[in-house]
């Protein structure tokens, strides 16, 4: 490698300079974040605020992301280069339950109303065949399997909260479309990223199982189980899942690894609620989670991408993936009672809390969670994706609930 080669000092400097201009890092609010990340000046471990403060700031950010669009959906992300993006059906779908949960927690009706506005917007973007479109709505509307499944979370929750059959009917049409485009083998490859099946489609199976519970139509359960069984066949003895990334030739992001684990875990818990520990999907999720926990605890850092030996391939952290992993560990603690998972989740939450800017004057930055830490990591670079904030809120709410329960059991004030 030479200084002038592709990975040389000249090319690196040129890339940073290009990023500096393209992502408008020279703006004061952006520059502040850039410098903080360059020197890794996060809040000291013992100086992160209480969860309620971080939660409130994150929810404020999500409200601003919703208000940034005029349609009721939630802006996909705040980009340092171009500002707020358009509404994103996939993530608006799974942000809806977060708003209902936060409304329950705070007894603030405003969050419930916002969730319903999101659900109503989802109804307007559903495609004729029942699918939901890929990407944010500023792009041509192509049906996409994964995105459709995530919209199900919002529609089903809106139905549960309101009893309005419109939401359930829309969910049913989405579910029917998912079943109709499934391959004989139980995989989904049409209408998917790179036209290939992914292990993280366990996250498609989970909402299908929820739909089965609501409608009692076995076709949804059968489709889900067929896919989950295929995913189990991809697991290696060390817990790794083959095909758990977007692309074959790229080390998977923690984001999609965590989706894979989460889908298996929640599906197993839904299928065998009385004895989740005996469920093979839960066991598969646990095996992979233990491998991640070990890596994180040994390194005191969660990398953003891993290879099939669970070796970190990068030095940045994928913050959305961190929070998804935290949720998985918290749920595993709930299901298995293994307190090491709770311990790991507490540390992971602290890390992401330390990256959240609580004081910026900038509405796109204050309370948001970056795609990567540092900002220029490969995952959603120089942006604040709404799903990172959503998973952050879910993780902190679950942490508070579980820690409060544990303290009550142990008689700690």
């Amino acid at each position, binding site marked *: 490698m030479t200084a002038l080669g592709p990975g040389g000092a000249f090319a690196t400097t040129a890339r940073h300079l290009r990023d500096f201009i393209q992502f408008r890092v020279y703006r004061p609010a952006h520059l502040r974040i850039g410098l903080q990340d360059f020197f*890794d000046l996060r809040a000291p471990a013992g100086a992160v605020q209480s969860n309620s403060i971080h939660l409130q700031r994150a929810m404020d950010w999500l409200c601003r992301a919703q208000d940034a669009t005029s349609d009721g959906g939630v802006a996909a992300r705040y980009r340092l280069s171009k500002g707020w993006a358009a509404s994103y059906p996939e993530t608006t779908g799974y942000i809806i339950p977060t708003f209902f949960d936060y409304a329950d927690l705070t007894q603030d009706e405003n969050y419930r109303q916002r969730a319903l506005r999101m659900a109503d917007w989802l109804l307007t973007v559903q495609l004729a065949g029942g699918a939901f479109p890929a990407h944010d709505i500023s792009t041509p509307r192509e049906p996409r399997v994964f995105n459709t499944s995530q919209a199900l979370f919002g529609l089903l929750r809106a139905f549960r909260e309101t009893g309005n059959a419109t939401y359930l009917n829309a969910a049913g049409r989405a579910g029917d479309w998912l079943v109709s485009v499934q391959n004989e083998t139980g995989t989904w490859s049409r209408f998917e990223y790179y036209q290939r099946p992914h292990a993280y489609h366990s996250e498609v199976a989970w909402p299908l199982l929820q739909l089965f519970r609501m409608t009692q139509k076995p076709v949804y359960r059968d489709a889900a189980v067929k896919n989950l069984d295929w995913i189990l066949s991809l697991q290696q003895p060390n817990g790794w899942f083959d095909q758990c990334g977007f692309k074959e030739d790229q080390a998977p992001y923690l984001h999609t690894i965590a989706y894979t684990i989460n889908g298996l875990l929640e599906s197993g818990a839904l299928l065998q609620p009385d004895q989740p520990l005996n469920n093979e999907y839960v066991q598969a999720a646990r095996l992979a989670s233990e491998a991640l926990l070990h890596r994180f605890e040994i390194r005191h850092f969660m990398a953003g991408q891993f290879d099939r030996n669970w070796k970190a391939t990068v030095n940045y952290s994928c913050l959305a993936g961190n929070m998804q992993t935290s949720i998985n560990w918290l749920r595993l603690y709930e299901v298995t009672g293994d307190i090491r998972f709770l311990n790991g989740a507490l540390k992971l939450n602290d890390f992401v809390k330390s990256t959240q800017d609580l004081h910026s004057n900038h509405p796109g930055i204050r309370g948001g969670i970056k795609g990567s830490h540092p900002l220029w990591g490969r995952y959603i670079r120089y942006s604040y994706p709404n799903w990172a904030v959503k998973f952050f809120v879910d993780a902190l709410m679950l942490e508070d609930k579980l820690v409060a329960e544990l303290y009550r059991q142990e008689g700690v004030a």
Partner: protein
Amino acid sequence: MNIVVLCKSWNHKKVLEILAALRQQQLRARGIVALAPEKPAFSSLLRKMRERGAKKILQSFSSNGHADSSRLNGVMPAGDSDRSLPDHLKNGYSQMTIAEYAELHQIEMVVVRDLNGDESVAALKRMNTDILLLGGVPIIRANVLAVPKVCALNVHMALLPKFRGMNVAEWSILSGAAVGVTVHQVDPGVDTGAILYRETIDVADCPNLAAMRAKVSRQQHQVLAKCVRWLIEKKFAPEPQKKEEGQQFYLMHDKLRKIVEHKLSKGYKLASPRHILGLLSALLKFGLEMETFLVFV
């Protein structure tokens, strides 16, 4: 038998406690192989500032001039820790460094840059090491573990095989298990080597974590030295561990530590099998007495 201690050069308290405990068993260390203090690299300083806050780092600089050598952290607290030392060493001993102790007692000390490196292996070979004692060191690789002719020993702050890894005394209490120490042979795994000896420690009199750790720490070195003596006298056979019998634990988060502190403040007492047996026998006795009484009536 040549006994050598492998340690960090700034971990004065632990190493001096081990050496003192050996002396109580009429044993003498042949040598000490110690890791040189790491240089305070910029990135490492930033990390520490983030973890502990800039104020504490600055304080450590002003007190000893080196962020990591932290001699202050290694100094034995006056009082309790001194009680475990031989009388002739008590006065002023708590202010001693490993190097000063080694010089005073003519123990060879070698400072190396990497405990797993060639320098370390060469020093251990030159000292003709029979028994290697680990005094609070990072993971030691197979090349070093292969040097001692008898074995490498470590004392672990919990009862193996259940609690492996870090903060294990805390994890024992959090899990409601007995607190204790285990002396085990060291293999390339994390606390997975064959067990030589286990001892339960009553921590009911420890009102907080610091007191509990101090008590366990004090006793663990006595137990280690006792085991070295027994090993030399061939008084026991190591008992291999099964991997699936235990779990690896990691650094405990403060929110869980709070529960441990709470349990200790209430007087942590375990319902040990002995207590349960005692309770059962009392119940049985009461039942028999009642029966006798009823027959009599």
